[in-house]
């Protein structure tokens, strides 16, 4: 086997490289086409505005929006999540103050909800099943007269689990409750259609879909129902008053181009990634015992693989495969020293949460890379197990759960 070019990037959930076609589309908007899209009185401004409108249309098409006017540009998905949740809570505060979300949402959603709780909102955090999915019936059951918003992500960033948005959308629509989704990880990778799923607000970002960092969007439905927001930033009233600030034209152009490419290439790309993901999983799981898949296999992003290598600590594993960029739910990789809250929510024990590795495959992942990574991972995990006291105890038949450990 030949060695692919190192280092290998297998962390496509964290970010993605800008597609060369995207970069090419962006470049003129840094130099000769540098106008401010809000300049209404000269050609520089018109050129910029036209380019922004094309991007808006491409993004609207990608998510099934009925009008490009429903796309509000932001600095990224964290801002979109904040704007959606806080903006809705503020606008509809006379109607109610109850929000339903899930425990495995991104921090931008969870922390926006926490802030609203301090301001008098009530938030229900729904649990997920062992497969990492929210039960739509639980959404139904959590509804009260005061519920104004349900926020459930399209796909999880750690375990790639795809949520039943279509079922949840039926429930929210029937109750007349607004439905927001953080669609960041799924847009351009799996089916996502705001009409079919009855989504009223959706957060997306360019850099997870081969566009540039620093630009995102919030889809805000304009009819049936018309969603209203209170802007969270004051200024020139850009984006129909929803988000003030001069538009980042080159990045928006890139975002639009990335959406256009995703629209065209998604089916083929998803099939290719699924095949590669399964190749990686099968190669690892057939070579080693006690390797566990976290989250549903069936309802999963094609490029996501999240495995726990029992008796091996995640950060040590990442260090051992240092030429491969992956991520871990181990506490040691976080400043808080707490293992992943997502894995905990699935009921994965803390020991296995510490042993988790997330592989994120994407557009530029090759079969050669997958084979190299599979072999390296098996070799290094075996090596680390040979120096793990837990593995030795396990092999001796000791039940690790029966041992009195000294928590520290």
């Amino acid at each position, binding site marked *: 086997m030949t060695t692919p070019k190192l280092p290998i990037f297998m962390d496509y959930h964290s970010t993605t490289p800008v597609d060369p076609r995207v970069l090419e589309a962006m470049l003129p908007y840094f130099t000769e086409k540098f106008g401010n899209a809000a300049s209404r009185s000269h050609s520089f401004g018109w050129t910029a505005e036209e380019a922004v409108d094309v991007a808006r249309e491409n993004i609207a098409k990608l998510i099934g929006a009925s009008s490009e006017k429903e796309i509000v540009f932001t600095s990224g998905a964290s801002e979109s999540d904040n704007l959606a949740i806080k903006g809705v809570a503020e606008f509809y505060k006379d109607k109610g103050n109850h929000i339903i979300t899930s425990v495995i949402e991104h921090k931008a959603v969870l922390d926006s909800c926490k802030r609203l709780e301090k301001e008098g909102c009530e938030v229900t955090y729904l649990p997920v099943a062992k497969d990492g999915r929210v039960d739509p019936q639980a959404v139904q059951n959590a509804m009260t007269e005061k519920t104004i918003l349900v926020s459930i992500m399209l796909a999880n960033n750690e375990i790639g689990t795809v949520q039943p948005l279509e079922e949840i959308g039926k429930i929210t629509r029937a109750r007349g409750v607004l439905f927001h989704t953080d669609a960041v990880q799924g847009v351009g990778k799996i089916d996502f259609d705001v009409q079919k799923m009855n989504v009223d607000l959706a957060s997306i970002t360019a850099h997870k879909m081969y566009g540039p960092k620093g630009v995102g969007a919030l889809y805000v439905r304009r009819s049936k129902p018309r969603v209203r927001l209170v802007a969270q930033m004051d200024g020139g009233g850009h984006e129909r008053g929803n988000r003030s600030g001069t538009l980042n034209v080159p990045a928006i152009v890139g975002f639009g181009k990335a959406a256009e490419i995703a629209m065209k290439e998604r089916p083929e790309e998803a099939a290719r990634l699924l095949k590669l993901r399964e190749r990686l999983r099968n190669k690892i799981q057939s070579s080693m015992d006690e390797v566990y898949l976290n989250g549903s296999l069936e309802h999963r992003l094609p490029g996501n693989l999240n495995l726990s290598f029992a008796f091996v*600590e995640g950060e*040590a594993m990442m260090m*051992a495969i240092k030429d491969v960029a992956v991520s871990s739910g181990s506490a040691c990789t976080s400043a808080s020293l707490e293992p992943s809250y997502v894995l905990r929510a699935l009921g994965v024990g*803390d*020991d296995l949460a510490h042993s988790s590795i997330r592989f994120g495959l994407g557009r530029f992942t090759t079969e050669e890379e997958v084979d190299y990574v599979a072999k390296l991972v098996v070799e290094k995990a075996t090596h680390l197990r040979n120096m*793990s006291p837990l593995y*030795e105890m396990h092999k001796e038949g000791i039940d690790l759960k029966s041992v009195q*450990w000294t*928590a*520290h």
Partner: protein
Amino acid sequence: MAYSEKVIDHAENPRNVGTLDKSDPNVGTGLVGAPACGDVMRLQIKVSDGGVIEDAKFKTFGCGSAIASSSLATEWLKGKTLEEAEKIKNVDIVNELNLPPVKIHCSVLAQDAIKSAIDDFRAKQAARRSEKPEAQTK
């Protein structure tokens, strides 16, 4: 987070990985930490009749800094008397490996492991001494 060269060296080429016979009366075993916390260290020492540590082995479940801390500890333990070994403090490990603040607990665990192995050895010796006189009186 960037690792220091010494941490990388120990994590990639750990010294003294292995297992000593824990039923050997001259072997002391320390097992500290917890899987749920992401760190478990087992450190073993073999002590000569003269009270000198002849051999030391470890196995660690933990991050690179935890592996490096225990690897370094086994290196330092060899050739020391128990009294000298007891003087190894976690700050010595922190300084030697340039551990960042977030990894200091790894060095604390290594110090605990040393203490636990020494305690185990002494407990075994004490148990042996208390058995022997009994055997003589019969």
